[in-house]
């Protein structure tokens, strides 16, 4: 969808290259995050795609067409653009701001109105805000309006330069989640710039890590970057908690669960003890036709012939197949145990996940 071939940029009066011989392929519907320290040319690279900056060398194709051979104004109207400070037009209401590009593209009023309403709903903006001016909005609302505005003519490509950086961390996390949900449906081709590796890991299908001077150090999915950093720069940039960050990207179902001690609620105490013995634990999971009920420990079986007499206790370290390994680890650690029980749909017992198994996953990277 977007391809950069040997793109370089040297600003006038500067001896250093801001971007050096950069080649990137960005597929349709993919979110690529450009990340790196300041001075790595990530914003410059992004702005060359809609020609706010012209490349000194190389070719940039959007949808197979050379951007340098197109009218920059027409090109830009077909590419959604969001910047950190959002840059809402202060003299236009929320509705007018969202309608900016449709208006430039000469849509008729009724179509514009319908589109504005649709986008405001998509972004959870109260219809009452329509006639407000940007100065009357909260930071989070402004960001939402900015992203909605960029999507107004439904462009296939979006450029987003730190779009969530101007709000506090709690609002930012919410906006990121909302945007991921929206992107799930829209499948835009997105070039996203940030200096925050955690944001990159969260938002990206693929991450391009750039070094000072616009040198591409690694271009890979987040999980791969965390598992196998290409070099010391990437390793350093990704930071000390590489293993933990990677756990957030792996689902429990992906590494598979282990068999654990499990007995039916109708079983005898004798059988329960045998199962515990076999797995080397002093507790066992109790199920009812495969459905998770809880657990019993060796002590509670004393003098009781059948499990039917022992009320099972609830699991506190409980995760689902869709949980991330990081969540599983959190559940295990916060409950001061070393095992979490894994349940599937409808509380079906799947197995157990041990802290050893998780740490193996970290070490194997």
């Amino acid at each position, binding site marked *: 969808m977007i391809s950069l071939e040997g793109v370089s940029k040297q600003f006038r009066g500067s001896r250093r290259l801001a971007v050096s011989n950069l080649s990137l392929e960005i597929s349709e519907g993919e979110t690529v995050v450009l990340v790196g320290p300041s001075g790595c040319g990530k914003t410059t690279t992004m702005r060359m795609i*809609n020609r*706010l900056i012209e490349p000194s060398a190389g070719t940039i194709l959007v949808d197979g067409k050379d951007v340098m051979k197109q009218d920059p*104004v*027409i*090109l*830009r*109207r*077909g590419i959604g*653009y969001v*910047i*950190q*400070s*959002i*840059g*809402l*037009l*202060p*003299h*236009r209401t929320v509705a007018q701001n969202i309608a*900016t*590009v449709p208006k*430039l593209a000469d849509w008729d009023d009724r179509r514009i109105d319908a589109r504005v309403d649709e986008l405001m709903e998509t972004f959870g903006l109260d219809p009452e805000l329509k006639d*407000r*001016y940007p*100065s*009357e909005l909260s930071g989070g609302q402004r960001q939402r309006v*900015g992203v909605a*505005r*960029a999507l107004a003519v439904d462009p296939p490509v979006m*450029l987003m330069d730190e779009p969530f950086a101007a709000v506090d961390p709690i609002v930012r996390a919410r906006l990121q989640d909302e945007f991921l949900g929206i992107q799930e449906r829209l499948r835009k081709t997105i070039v996203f710039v940030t200096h925050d590796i955690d944001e990159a890991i969260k938002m990206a299908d693929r991450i391009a890590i750039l070094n000072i001077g616009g040198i591409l150090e690694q271009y890979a999915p987040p999980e791969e970057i965390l598992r196998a950093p290409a070099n010391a720069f990437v390793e350093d940039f990704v930071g000390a908690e590489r293993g933990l960050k990677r756990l957030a990207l792996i689902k429990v179902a992906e590494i598979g669960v282990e068999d654990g001690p499990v007995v039916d609620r109708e079983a005898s105490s004798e059988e329960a003890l045998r199962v515990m013995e076999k797995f080397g634990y002093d507790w066992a999971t109790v199920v009812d036709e495969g459905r998770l009920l809880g657990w019993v420990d060796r002590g509670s079986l004393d003098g009781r012939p059948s499990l039917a007499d022992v009320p099972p206790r609830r699991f506190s370290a409980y995760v689902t197949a869709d949980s991330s390994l990081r969540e599983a680890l959190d559940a295990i650690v916060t409950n001061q145990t070393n095992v979490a029980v894994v349940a599937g749909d409808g509380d079906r017992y799947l197995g157990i996940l041990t802290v050893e198994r998780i740490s193996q996953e970290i070490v194997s990277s």
Partner: protein
Amino acid sequence: MIALADELIRWDWVFSHGQEIWSRFVQHVELTVIAVGVGLLISFPLAIVAHRHRFLYTPIAWFTGLLYTIPSIALFVILLPITGLSYTTAEIGLVSYTLLILIRNTVVGLSGVPEDVKEAARGMGYTQRELLWRVELPLALPAIMAGIRIAVVSTIGLVTVAALIGRGGLGQFILEGLQTFFNTEILLGAVLSVALALAADAALLGAQRVLTPWSRTGGPRTRPFIPWKKPGFPIG
């Protein structure tokens, strides 16, 4: 010099000169409107050029500043041999004094447009011209209107000086009153021109409020500086 023995104002004279008062008032308004109008026509493109090409701002500001410093009486005297006792003479003077104010305020307004707003607008596909007319000028409007208000008020004052060349609107009364020691005429000219200035200023302020609804909605930027409302001011 006001003759003290004389009655301060003779209402019978005022009422018997209604026609003349009206026509001079209209002339005053005309002179002002034409001066500021022509001033805008000249300064507006110059301001835009100066905004686009920064290096031109200094010479433009220097030249209009020079015009501004020439004493008005001197300027009329210089122009007399060329354009005579005419409206042209009066207007050349009046227009030249508006230029500095109008250009300065327009350039200040344009350069005050936030960079991120312009960047976002360009990124969305505004052409240079659309950016100017739909983003930069509307956002510069409060500053431009402030310039127009100052220009109008100061022009209304200056018109009275143009009475010296016989084209002074209400200033005509002041001049005649001074020559004949007739207080009523002096007061009439002064009071009416001050009233005109105040009314024009209020009307323009009202127009600005209507034209820039967004600037009423908040943002400390738009609030005027009022010293006794500042924290720590001794007589708060």
